[in-house]
């Protein structure tokens, strides 16, 4: 049965999932790259928060800017130093490359942090708002609000700043970069860096609401893909709505089929969407990301 509490839980989780998808959607929409390593970026963001909390007692929410900075630098360097070399190659090559990066990042993380599942539990973790029988934990509520805030900031950045407009323009043609007088390679690197930074923020938020491990990346990548497909590619609002829907899917999937099937439910939904409506439920086709590949 759908209970109001489950719907609340789903929506609270959905904000974080939307943020996971947002950076993925940006990179796909603008660079036409399916970044399989996206889930690993989320994982690294989560571990930055975990580490800062565990070693120095930094509040997990305060570590978000640090996660974003670390991942922006990492993302920028990866795009600049590696992916820019093959960005015009066929889909197979960029898929392999980012898949290889994902392996590399997760095996490094495994060496470093071992395979243990960890979690971040700040002292205020248990406090919550109570409305009769309904419960809204402060931590979950904060993740939703922050996720919405970061989404709004990205939207403002893309819509209102010159750099943001140049980034959007590169999705349609390659002259956008000239508007702000920087090279296409830099625009791509900045875009990829921003996508990674958002993944880092999402990872920090994931760390406070879910257990984390070095191998958590793969399921977040597929989730991000599923949300993009559902919400329509390269569409900020679409990522948000898709994220909220998958938050509900996650909660109800776990309730109905058992927690072990949570991923399988996401994959099954993804397959059904792909087969029935590959252009997405909400979106139309975004430039560069056609099904023709």
């Amino acid at each position, binding site marked *: 049965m759908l209970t109001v509490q489950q719907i609340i839980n789903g929506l609270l989780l959905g904000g974080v999932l939307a943020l996971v998808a947002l950076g993925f959607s940006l990179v796909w929409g603008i660079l036409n790259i399916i970044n399989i390593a996206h889930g690993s970026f989320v994982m690294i963001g989560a571990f930055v928060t975990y580490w800062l909390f565990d070693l120095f007692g930094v509040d997990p929410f305060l570590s978000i800017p640090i996660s974003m900075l670390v991942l922006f630098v990492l993302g920028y360097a990866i795009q600049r130093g590696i992916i820019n070399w093959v960005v015009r190659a066929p889909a197979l090559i960029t898929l392999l490359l980012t898949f290889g990066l994902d*392996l590399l990042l997760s095996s490094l993380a495994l060496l470093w942090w071992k395979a243990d599942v960890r979690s971040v539990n700040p002292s205020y973790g248990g406090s919550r708002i109570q409305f009769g029988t309904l419960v809204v934990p402060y931590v979950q509520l904060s993740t939703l609000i922050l996720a919405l805030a970061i989404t709004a900031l990205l939207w403002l950045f893309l819509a209102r700043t010159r750099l943001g407009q140049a980034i959007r323009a590169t999705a349609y043609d390659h002259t956008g970069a000239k508007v702000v007088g920087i090279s296409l390679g830099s625009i791509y690197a900045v875009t990829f860096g921003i996508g990674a930074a958002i993944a880092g923020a999402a990872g920090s938020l994931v760390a406070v609401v879910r257990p984390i491990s070095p191998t958590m990346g793969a399921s977040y990548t597929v989730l991000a893909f599923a949300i993009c497909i559902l919400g329509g590619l390269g569409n900020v609002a679409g990522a948000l709505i898709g994220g909220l829907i998958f938050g509900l899917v996650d909660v109800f999937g776990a309730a109905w089929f058992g927690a072990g099937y949570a991923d399988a439910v996401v994959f099954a939904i993804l397959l059904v969407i792909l087969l029935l409506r590959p252009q997405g439920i909400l979106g139309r086709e975004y430039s560069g990301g056609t099904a023709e590949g």
Partner: protein
Amino acid sequence: MGANASRRRSLLPPITSRSLGWVLSVLVLILLVAVPLNGDDYWVRVLTGIFAVAVMAEGWNIIGGFTGYAAFGQVGWFGLGAYTVGVAMSRWGWPFWPSLIAAGLLPAVVAALIGVPILRLRGHYFAIATLAFGIALGELANNLRYVGASSGISLPIGPPFAFFYYVMLAVLVLAVVATWLIARSRLGYALVAIRENEQAAAVLGVNTALYKTAAFAISALLTGLAGGVQAYWSTSIYAPTVFDITRNVDLIVMALLGGAGTVLGPVVGAFLLDGLNEQLTGAFLQWHAVIFGAVVLLIVLFLPGGLGGLVAQGRTGVRNFLRDLKAFRV
């Protein structure tokens, strides 16, 4: 147009025979048949593993190399084959051979069924759909109590290693011979035409949906057989091992390295890369996964056309190599 610019140069043209290649491969085959005779268990074990990976790479080659559909769920067929043998032998008490046949047929049937809708997708969409399907199969195996859920399936200890060595080698030979036959048949012509331009193939009368589905099913069949042999060989079947999604990328890189869309390229690539992986595992227990990952990245970055591309460029190789590097750059 993008497809034209990105044409891979391959070791062997897709639809021609090379007698030298065949003489060499028969010699190698004779050598391989002789390996277990000197009683060295290490090499028997290592080579059996490489044969399995080579079958997977060759299986991917049919849908990915010949047909041009970037399947990322090949490991799903391997796991499905492994679980078929596991369930048939442990639950139903079947002998090994009929179980192995089922391990080929079941993935083929499943591939034929999902192939009809899934092969309408292209590019990224097809890649992720196949990846998700492979992962979903693994998740299912890991949760379904009938197949042992997370504790997997255990089989009784089977015949000595040499038995599995020869069976796996036979599956590999089957995969190569099947690919060779396909490459020179109507089917092979249809697949390459689909890869190069699906619509142009269709208006010339090629039933693209039928041939793509056939390629997908054959690819699943060969890979499932390898999984079936692997299952009985290792006697313990765990979903995370037989559905290890990280191997999807390894075997595609192997096929690319040796030459996708050629008969022997993927096998050569598998021997090189999996052999290297084995050496790395021996030398750097902790870091081998990282080093291997880096090698895979370097291959994708610098040799997207495979070794064949390098050889085909001949003398002016270095200059062409640099030019190729710049071709996809921004």
